[in-house]
């Protein structure tokens, strides 16, 4: 299962190599040309003999995680977070360290040794360390270097009633959507961008968009589903099972009304369920793409996902399938009718 394979690969920001290799191997032969740009974005184009506006589809390969910033005398690893991680979710998680995937666990002072105040406060990353079972610093240095990236060790898979759990669904689910779309033929030039370093500041997309200079961009993301307690109904930005979420605005971009209208019209015509992302906070690659060169129109379609930026996220497989359908129908619509103005 593609989603499972992608989820279990490690690709903490700046260490996306394994993800890039995997995608590259899978899509070889399905596209006209593949290129890795200088920052590491994987750009796959389907544009031979195609006329019309260039549409860029982007999904980021990287995930949030940790970095080794020190090794103490006893061989325990000091860590820092990469990307927005809630530090409270870190304790006792199993991890893989570095490109060799050295197994480790995130340790902290056990409850017996904690002072009363310590028990009442969440542990900060400075109080956490990764234990790779080394006997001392020298032993640890055989397997690990300062700067090595650390990803969660989580097995992904379907569960419950059509749901799927795994790490890094933000944004491997988006990558999987793009890879699925490549199976189809579209009558317009397309550039699929699998980007790097989104979680640390939308960095890959910034240069990918500059290089491609598309006429329209579509960012495929996951977004937090707030359909869990204790949130009130109006505080939930999206809900699992209600279809792909269309963004009208976030902190990084205001989507053109004409683009939203077209997406909605396409969804309704094709009978594809959709929801609006009922929030104006957060940000995606759409922000930097929109601000590229003389300005690029951009839309965002997200798969609702619970518990994102934690070791395990949950999405609905029907939302995933409907997202592919919606973008497929949207691309056919653009090929036929041109860009919305």
């Amino acid at each position: 299962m593609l989603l499972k394979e992608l989820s279990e690969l490690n690709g903490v920001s700046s260490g996306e190599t394994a993800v890039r290799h995997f995608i590259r191997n899978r899509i070889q032969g399905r596209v006209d040309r593949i290129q890795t740009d200088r920052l590491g974005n994987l750009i796959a184009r389907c544009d031979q003999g195609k006329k019309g506006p260039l549409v860029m589809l982007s999904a980021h390969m990287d995930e949030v995680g940790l970095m080794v910033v020190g090794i103490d005398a006893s061989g325990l690893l000091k860590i820092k977070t990469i990307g927005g991680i809630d530090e409270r979710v870190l304790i006792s998680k199993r991890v893989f360290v570095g490109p060799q995937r050295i197994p480790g666990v995130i340790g902290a002072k056990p409850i017996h040794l904690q002072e009363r105040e310590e028990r009442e406060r969440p542990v900060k990353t400075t109080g956490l360390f990764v234990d790779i079972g080394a006997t001392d610093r020298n032993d640890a240095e055989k397997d690990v270097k300062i700067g090595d990236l650390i990803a969660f060790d989580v097995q992904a898979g379907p569960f419950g009633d059509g749901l799927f759990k795994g790490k890094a669904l933000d944004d491997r689910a988006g990558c999987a959507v793009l890879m699925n779309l490549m199976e189809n033929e579209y009558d317009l030039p397309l550039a699929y961008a699998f980007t790097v370093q989104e979680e640390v500041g939308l960095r890959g997309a910034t240069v990918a968009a500059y290089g491609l200079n598309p006429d329209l961009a579509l960012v495929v993301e996951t977004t937090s589903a707030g359909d869990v307690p204790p949130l009130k109904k109006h505080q939930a930005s999206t809900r699992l099972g209600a279809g792909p979420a269309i963004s009208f605005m976030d902190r990084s971009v205001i989507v053109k009304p004409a683009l939203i209208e077209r997406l909605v019209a396409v969804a309704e015509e094709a009978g594809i369920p959709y929801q609006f992302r009922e929030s104006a906070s957060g940000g995606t690659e759409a922000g930097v793409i929109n601000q590229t060169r003389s300005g690029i129109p951009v839309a965002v379609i997200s798969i609702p996902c619970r518990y994102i930026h934690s070791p395990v996220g949950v999405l609905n497989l029907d939302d995933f399938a409907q997202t592919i359908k919606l973008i497929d129908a949207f691309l056919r619509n653009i090929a036929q009718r041109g860009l919305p103005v």
Partner: protein
Amino acid sequence: MKDLLRRLTSIPAPSGREEQIRAFIQAELKDYCDELTVDTMGNLIAFKRGGKTKLQFAAHMDEIGVIVTAIDEQGFLRFSNIGGIRPHRLYAQRVRFQNGTMGVIGAEKIDDLKQLTLEKLYIDIGATSAEEAKTKVAVGDIASFDHGYLDLGQRVVAKALDDRVGCAVLIEALKRVTKPQNDLYCTFTVQEEVGLRGAKTAAFGLDPDLGIALDVTATGDTPEAPKLAMKLGQGAAIKVKDVSLITHPQVKELLTTLAEQNGIPHQFEVLPFGGTDAGAIHLTKAGIPAGVISVPCRYLHSPSEMVDLNDVEAAVRLVVATMEHPITL
């Protein structure tokens, strides 16, 4: 000028919804420039030929506002801010949606004003159910303050004087300029309030030799005000620094000299908060010298902003003087 300000401020145009104000300015300027274009982001660019140096002026068309994020079961609208808005400035205000629907902002019960956050506020459009609300407003709809224009003689009060006063200055300057000595690219920008977005892409497309933003600035001339040198009625403010920009020394020098030579009342502006389109312009491509001519304004980002017409006139004269001065950098 009063009439122009009244008409400009009466048009609702929160960031991302600048169509109406753009159409108004387009109509206003069609006989006063060589070319009028609208770029991808929606910036309006009025071009007037005049000389070798490419001079970009930027005044933003957008204003702060609110956007509906959810409609609850009772038909109350939850919303988020567009641009910098303090919750206490919103409470009990009236807002108008693009389709004309009106509403008033209410708040959940709080014990202390410090607890007042945007999440505690809602818009009441008089609907008695979610179904009724949804016939008038949808999630993603955008509204702006609805507050009338107030003529206090030498000073006027209105919503959105930030930055319709900058737009008015630029419109008036384009109408008055007789012998432009530079190629003038007068840009009326979009989405300034959410991060100088229009100016950034406009400057990339134009690649000017010099950029000058026209915007409002805060004042220190009210009771217990922050310690700021700017005062209403003391003339056009030549920016020295804000968070987004340290004015290029040559640009500051140029504007100061032009003000002195033409006897234009002026003051200097150091603003410890905020930024303008010039911040985005000066970091474009390999760098563009930029500065700002500001109109001092009280009660910024409120439904009742106040400017002094003497300052507006001084700003117009300084812009015209810049347009008519052969600039070499």
